[in-house]
């Protein structure tokens, strides 16, 4: 041979820098370059993942709102509004209030005057028009009874509805089964939402796995050469996983922006009605949801790629 190849020594101070540079080059720089080069095969995965994550973000926010709604409804279901006659005697009202306050099943009793009832109605979506359409105040005064256990609401209702101070036509707010109906609807919505997200997730993972498989196929010569010259497994697999992470994080970022923007638009468009239909959804919550969507995209992209690499690269 014309010359001897002499193995060099590694100056210690340069070793870490060389390792870091090589890892960055072969893992991240190579992945980014290949991702850009193979964008056409990655685009379907990017699109489907963005769609999935956007819908997941919106479904997640809706779920959060429904959860809060359920809590509010649950709290309200144990409040019994006892509507008083307009001409009820003050003594009768006082007697009834005292009787309720002394009942061990009752946590508290508050009095709402007709004026307060009107004021409250005017803050409710749809009710201001009704309140304003009548010259007189159509809302009755009431005793708002917080019952300790929701199971005792029916008994309290039965006890008060024949009282002389109570409106004989519409005595209380008690509606047997209303709370159960709300819960059933919420459960159905939750199950439907989760099933939808699961279906979209399956589609997104499948598309991502196939796009990574296409990337592996298009670079099989390069992969073979790397393996034959002794590249460790992480160096062969790593760039594909990083490519998946790039796809996932871009999809997550786009979906996060969509989620945040739609939530902001909802909050800005009708803050009063929005807070009723989507209680608890604030700017902070929307930002948190967007962050979670981004993280989910990153995880989904990396995880799908890892699955694909395990299934197709070693084969």
């Amino acid at each position, binding site marked *: 041979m014309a010359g001897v190849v002499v193995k060099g020594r590694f100056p210690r101070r340069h070793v870490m820098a060389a390792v870091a540079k*090589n890892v960055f080059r072969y893992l991240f720089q190579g992945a980014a370059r290949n991702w850009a080069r193979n964008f056409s095969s990655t685009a379907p995965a990017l699109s489907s993942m963005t769609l999935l994550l956007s819908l997941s973000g919106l479904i997640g926010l809706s779920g959060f709102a429904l959860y809060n709604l359920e809590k509010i409804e649950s709290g309200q279901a144990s409040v019994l509004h006892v509507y008083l006659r307009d001409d009820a005697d003050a003594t009768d009202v006082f007697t009834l209030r005292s009787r309720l306050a002394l009942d061990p099943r009752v946590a508290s009793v508050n009095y709402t005057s007709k004026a307060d009832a009107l004021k409250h109605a005017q803050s409710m979506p749809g009710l201001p028009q009704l309140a304003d359409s009548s010259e007189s105040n159509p809302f009755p005064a009431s005793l708002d009874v917080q019952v300790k256990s929701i199971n005792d609401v029916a008994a309290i209702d039965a006890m008060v509805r024949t009282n002389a101070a109570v409106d004989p036509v519409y005595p209380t707010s008690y509606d047997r089964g209303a709370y159960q109906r709300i819960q059933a609807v919420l459960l159905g919505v939750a199950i439907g939402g989760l099933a939808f997200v699961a279906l979209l997730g399956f589609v997104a993972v499948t598309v991502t796995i196939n796009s990574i498989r296409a990337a592996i196929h298009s670079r099989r010569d390069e992969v073979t*050469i790397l393996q034959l010259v002794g590249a460790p497994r992480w160096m062969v697999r790593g760039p594909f996983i990083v490519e998946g992470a790039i796809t996932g994080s871009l999809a997550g970022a786009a979906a996060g922006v969509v989620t945040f923007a739609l939530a902001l638009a909802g909050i800005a468009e009708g803050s009063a009605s929005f807070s009723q239909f989507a209680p608890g959804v604030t700017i902070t919550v929307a930002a948190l949801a967007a962050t979670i969507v981004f993280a989910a995209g990153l995880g989904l992209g990396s995880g799908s790629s890892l699955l694909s690499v395990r299934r197709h690269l070693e084969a």
Partner: protein
Amino acid sequence: MPDHPTKSSISRGPRDERPIVEFNGVTRAYGSRLALDDLNLALEPGELTFLVGPSGAGKTTLLKLINREVRPTKGEVWIDGIAAHALKASHVAELRRRVGVVFQDYKLLPRLTARENVALALQVGDLRVSDQEAKERALDALEAVGLGDRGDALPHELSGGQQQRVAVARAVVRQPPLLIADEPTGNLDVETAWGIMDLLEDIAAFGITVLVATHNIEIVTRLQRRVLTLVDGRLVRDQPAGQTGRMAWLAWS
């Protein structure tokens, strides 16, 4: 007979007491077909050995067993003291860093220059190698194969013989104890093929074991090196260096 693999990730024995390549009763089957059948052989350090035989005789399977691209169905394969037959997939890279490989179709990365192709083998095998060191060592290797002035050329700018020289430089740049070549002259004209064989002889002279699978009977007979002849997966002849092979005709079929 080597010891059985230990519990360590890669079992190795004392290097000086072992051949570089050792096959003990190796059988490799693909389904019901035996590609190699009860093969026993040993290659010593610095040996240049030819592997001949008709197509389908098992030459490529033998090389793949050495490089741990496949596992034996039965038997033991020891490479520089490493039990390749028992090697986990996660440790194969460590074995391959000790085996230089040259292919008939060169297998150079088309987007990298000659120097970068050679440097790649250095840096993927050892991340501690800096760019400067990789560049210098790659240029040294290219200089050694007569391409010191073509380091910046892309593979498509080089002739077939030059590309094969780059592949040889890549295979030896890490100074492995073993180099295997699968039909390294198959795509080259006669003169260029002799140039590559001169290189492989020089490499063996520096103590690297070289195993060349070839159909080129002229090279095999003229170089008078050790010749292993495979037929239907069986080692039918092991000619020591310096003898004219009576079975060499098999390589023609």
